[in-house]
């Protein structure tokens, strides 16, 4: 059977490692179930240098070195595959995950060390690759969902891999193959709620795939029905994602029994006291199931004895608990007071909301289906249920202007929101990457790889898609927003209008719909 080394690349280096890579943990479990010999090197958890990486690569005769992650792991992945090719000249190097899926041809070109790329969902593709390694006669073009190199070096995409239907047939993630005690449990706290802050043994689970909504900055990793294969004018087949007028989704979720049994397993085996649902949008699933899914998960949470019971300190504050608190991602228009109350009663502590903006004209261009009014309604429903809403904000949208900046500041003040907004960032795979690609390239002197290398958290600026503001203006405006300094913003608006030749009284914006795709540079 194939001997496979999984490597989890480094992500968000400025913070401690907090998340077992769920996709790799599932793939490792699948590979073991099929009888393969599996080792995991979690480079993100250990954060050790090149020497340790190379020692790992020399530790055995690996048939396969497999790695993957989100787009922002590019720096780390580039280093790992370079070392892997060097130390393991005859191993098959396989790359998968969101990083490869959105730009398969570019990644295979920039990373010549990679032999096979797995596009989109890998639950069936990777075991088929391992099976072919065992059989000794690899022909990757016969494995759907791959990109590989033909003998003359041209890249070949095999047919698109279909998404699996039977999610409950997946094994549990191979958590034992990750340094839970050594690293992850020590970093259990999540500063989103009191209970999150007090969490001491947290694991993440992913209970569903997909999101019914269209947010123009969002990417769904090609595992949410968001990906189609299209042929370009030169006859090349490429995966395509959201673009104006074409949006596809497949909504899939585990049964409530699978979800809660998995949590119970984690509770009994690892003594966890907190679970983060990684799901893109729990409320999509609830709505799709006719409002039964979350209710049933909550009912089972009680039935399985997972509902937290507390120990208090001398001030009457929670000190610790038995049972499992949890959190996830909600959506302004899809939640309702009943389900929020039910979730709270089952131990839900906080819910992330992408409120993004409190300016109606900006919300209209984002997609999403939400408005400032629906944002505020869900905000109070969530607070009233006893769950903390996490009010995410973004600035730098295509039609961001002085008015929207002020509307945001007013809303934050009224709603007690304390936030340092992200910058709207066109990650590959999102509609805005597709629409603004030329503009992004211009901002990086035609070098797309330089843009990818620059990507990290959206709290730092990279490519700008705002038509009105450049990077320096956005950073300055955010600084003033944080200080609630309307005086400076008003003063700058006057200078800005003069600079752009906008007469007094005329709308202070350069954005027109026909201009979509042409950012300020």
């Amino acid at each position: 059977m194939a001997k496979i080394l999984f490597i989890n690349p480094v992500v968000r280096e400025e913070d401690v490692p907090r998340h077992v890579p769920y996709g790799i943990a599932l793939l490792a479990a699948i590979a073991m179930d099929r009888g393969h010999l599996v080792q995991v090197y979690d480079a993100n958890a250990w954060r050790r240098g090149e020497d340790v990486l190379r020692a790992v690569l020399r530790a055995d005769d690996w048939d396969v070195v497999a790695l993957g992650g989100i787009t922002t792991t590019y720096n780390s992945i580039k280093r790992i595959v370079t070392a892997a090719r060097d130390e393991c000249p005859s191993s098959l190097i396989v790359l998968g995950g969101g990083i490869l899926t959105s730009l398969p041809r570019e990644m295979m070109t920039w990373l010549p060390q990679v032999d096979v790329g797995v596009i989109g969902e890998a639950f069936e593709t990777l075991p088929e690759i391992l099976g072919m390694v065992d059989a000794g006669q690899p022909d990757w073009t016969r494995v759907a969902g791959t990109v590989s190199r033909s003998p003359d070096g041209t890249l070949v995409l095999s047919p698109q891999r279909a998404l699996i239907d039977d999610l409950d047939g997946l094994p549990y993630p191979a958590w034992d193959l990750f340094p839970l005690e050594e690293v992850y449990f020590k970093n259990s706290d999540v500063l989103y709620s009191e209970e999150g802050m007090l969490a001491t043994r947290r694991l993440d689970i992913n209970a569903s795939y997909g999101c019914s909504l269209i947010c123009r900055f969002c990417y769904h990793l090609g595992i949410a029905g968001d990906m189609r294969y299209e042929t370009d004018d030169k006859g090349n087949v490429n995966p395509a994602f959201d673009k104006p007028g074409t949006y596809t989704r497949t909504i899939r979720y585990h049964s409530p029994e699978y979800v809660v049994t998995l949590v119970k397993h984690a509770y009994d085996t690892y003594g966890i006291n907190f679970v983060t649902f990684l799901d893109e949008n729990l409320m999509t699933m609830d709505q799709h199931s006719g409002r039964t899914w979350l209710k049933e998960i909550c009912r089972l949470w009680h039935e399985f004895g997972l509902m937290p019971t507390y120990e208090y300190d001398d001030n009457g504050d929670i000190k610790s608990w038995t049972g499992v608190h949890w959190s996830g991602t909600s959506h302004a228009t899809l939640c309702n007071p009943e389900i929020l109350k039910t979730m709270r009663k089952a131990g839900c502590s906080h819910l992330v909301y992408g409120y993004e903006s409190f300016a109606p004209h900006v919300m209209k261009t984002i997609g999403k289906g939400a408005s400032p009014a629906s944002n505020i309604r869900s905000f109070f429903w969530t607070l009233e249920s006893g769950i903390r809403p996490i009010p995410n904000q973004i600035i730098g949208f295509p039609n961001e202007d002085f008015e929207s900046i002020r509307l945001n500041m007013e809303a934050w003040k009224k709603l007690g929101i304390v936030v340092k907004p992200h910058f709207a960032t066109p990650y590959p795979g999102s509609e805005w990457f597709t629409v603004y690609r030329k503009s992004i390239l211009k901002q990086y002197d035609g070098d797309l790889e330089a843009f990818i290398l620059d990507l990290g958290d959206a709290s730092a600026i990279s490519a700008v898609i705002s038509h009105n503001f450049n990077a320096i203006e956005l950073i300055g405006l955010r600084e003033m927003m944080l200080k609630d300094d309307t005086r400076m913003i008003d003063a700058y608006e006057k200078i800005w209008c003069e600079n752009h030749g906008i007469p007094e009284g005329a709308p202070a914006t350069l954005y027109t719909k026909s201009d979509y795709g042409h950012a300020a540079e």
Partner: protein
Amino acid sequence: MTSVLKGNFTPKKTVDLEPEKKDLETRFENAALKRLGGSIAFVAKKKIKWDADE
């Protein structure tokens, strides 16, 4: 010793986690970087590229 490799078989060679060796200079510079701003400023000694003739 903790192995950095975890799996379902014993690899030919083990790779143990050596205690991280960070010298005092690195520890100081990392700590200062975390609090950078205002009067906290420092010289990253390994990054000096100044040529004496400049």
